């Protein structure tokens, strides 16, 4: 049988799914044990016990200095910034995308501008962002917004252009105005696409969030990682990285479920 035609059965598939993760964990704990045998105070590859202790300290015991639970405070601050950033970007990106994709008069100035803006690396213009938006919450949210809005807008513009012309003409012969056409034809078509685009830019949004928190902040997941990096506390950093990965994965999964529930016709129409 050709390799291309060989499919794993259920138990084998499960095994194959787990295998790479298990190998990675094995490699990690093997290296960790080796380093800790050489030097019991080694901080680079902490053991599971050390990381569990750190998690207990960060998540389930009150911080001596601030009296709060550090991990949850950091998570709340970061998620709030991320939610505001993603929310604003989604709304602005959707409006720009629809305007540029359906109305030629708007598309002419907007399209090239969006292309250029989406190429500007936001991290390179950080000093300008600080001077314009200050160092507070606003600049952190704005970094996310500036980073992902042009990408969302460009994607949605493209999707709006892909709506069959026949559909738009039909709506007009039935008496739809431009406004009604956007609201009743274009917008419903683009909403599921917006959710999918959001899933794709989640990674970038996290990147910008952590960069913003690393530069000037007093709380947040990125702030904590860059702070404890100063004394190589990998026992804190690694659980934080796992936690961020889990949060990002949950958000991705949530958006996927939302797409499926809110727009069941979308996937059906494509298959």
């Amino acid at each position, binding site marked *: 049988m050709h390799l291309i035609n*060989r499919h*794993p059965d259920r138990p*084998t598939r499960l*095994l194959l799914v787990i*295998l790479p993760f298990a*190998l990675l964990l*094995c*490699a990690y704990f*093997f*290296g960790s044990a*080796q380093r800790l045998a*050489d*030097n*019991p*105070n*080694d*901080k*680079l590859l902490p053991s599971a016990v050390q990381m569990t*202790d*750190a998690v207990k*300290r960060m998540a389930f015991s009150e911080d001596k*200095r601030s009296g709060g639970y550090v991990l949850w405070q950091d998570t709340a601050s970061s998620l709030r910034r991320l939610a505001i950033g993603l929310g604003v970007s989604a709304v602005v990106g959707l409006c720009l995308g629809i305007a540029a994709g359906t109305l030629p008069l708007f598309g002419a100035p907007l399209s090239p501008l969006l292309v250029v803006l989406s190429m500007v690396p936001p991290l390179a213009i*950080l*000093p300008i962002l*600080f*001077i314009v938006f*200050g*160092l*507070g919450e606003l600049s952190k949210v704005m970094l996310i917004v500036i980073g992902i809005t042009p990408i969302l807008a460009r994607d949605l513009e493209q999707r709006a252009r892909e709506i069959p012309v026949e559909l738009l003409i039909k709506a007009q012969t039935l008496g739809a105005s431009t406004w009604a056409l956007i609201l009743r034809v274009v917008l419903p078509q683009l909403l599921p696409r917006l959710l999918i685009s959001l899933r794709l830019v989640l990674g970038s949004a996290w990147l910008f969030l952590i960069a913003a928190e*690393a*530069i*000037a*902040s*007093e709380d947040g997941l990125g*702030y904590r990682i*860059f*702070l404890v*990096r*100063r*004394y*190589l*506390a990998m*026992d804190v950093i690694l659980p934080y990285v796992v936690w961020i990965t889990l949060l990002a994965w949950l958000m991705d999964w949530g958006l996927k479920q939302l797409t499926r529930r809110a727009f069941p016709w979308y996937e059906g129409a494509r298959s």
Partner: protein
Amino acid sequence: MRKPLLSALLAAGIALLVSLPSNAAAKTDFNVCWTIYAGWMPWEYAQAQGIVDKWAKKYGIHIKVTQLNDYVESINQYTAGQFDGCTMTNMDALTIPAAGGVDSTALLVSDFSNGNDGIVIKGNGKTVADLKGMNVNLVELSVSHYLLARALDSVDLQEKDLKVINTSDADISAAFNTDAVQAVTTWNPMLADIKAKPGVTEVFDSSKIPGEIIDMMVVNTQTLKDNPALGKALTGAWFEVVALMGSQSAAGEAALEHMAKASGTDLAGFKAQLATTQLFRTPQQMLDFVNSPELPKTMDKVSGFSFEHGLLGQAAKDSSAIGMRFAHEVTRGDKGNLKLRFDPGYVQMAVDGKL
């Protein structure tokens, strides 16, 4: 049909794990790293002009001197074992390698900050007491943070009387230009930049706590013990460059010019930075500093600050968790856990002309 595939993968994985590298003891090739800072620019010159190579050759070894762009990362790399030596401050030597169980020796205590770190507040005629209730931007848990704590001590304020906002050193100059930022604590060259703005006051600087923020070349203790040649070559190269810098000759000026260029400033700017850096010009000066009874007292303050801020690790029960050893067999902290050593032996050789 499926089993061979699986077992092959498992075998490959195990082979990968077993082939992880192990350490060797005796060696002739060494790696040290440094980062850009006025007091460490002699390493750049020593590397570029072949002075390190010359001394290494004399003792039959090879030393590669690498410049890294990120200070904290350079110390982390040293702690992880990628480098045999690295430039760092006394506080970072205690809280990163020593607290991480890497027994480290301060081979060359090359200078102390004498105005190179400072606290600046916007507005004229401000004092340290004005910091009360303010937001202060600084690199948290760095020597800036220590300087702030010492400044607050001087007016009986505490850290909880103000709010510290962690700000990266690369962005602190830009941050100071925004209205939201009222006070910063930082070091040169950013400090010079910020101080030069109109309508600001420098309320405290490191010249008020002389000898407490120390810059050093730190070497792995075990490596140094096994290979004294490394210590001798680095010490010899260092004092050759420092002597040249202070020689007032044309060659000395050329060396300063070279270092100024490499640190991204001009000769005048570099000299201004050196003026606030108390560089030990002769082996005797360095030896006196390392032998002085003030050094253990300073390190007591530093370990107290580090413990209060959780920098000595979660296992630390008090500020004596990490043992430190000084000249004349003086020790501080846990004698069973000596991880930071100030060793005057190699400087003594330089004083005696035995290098």
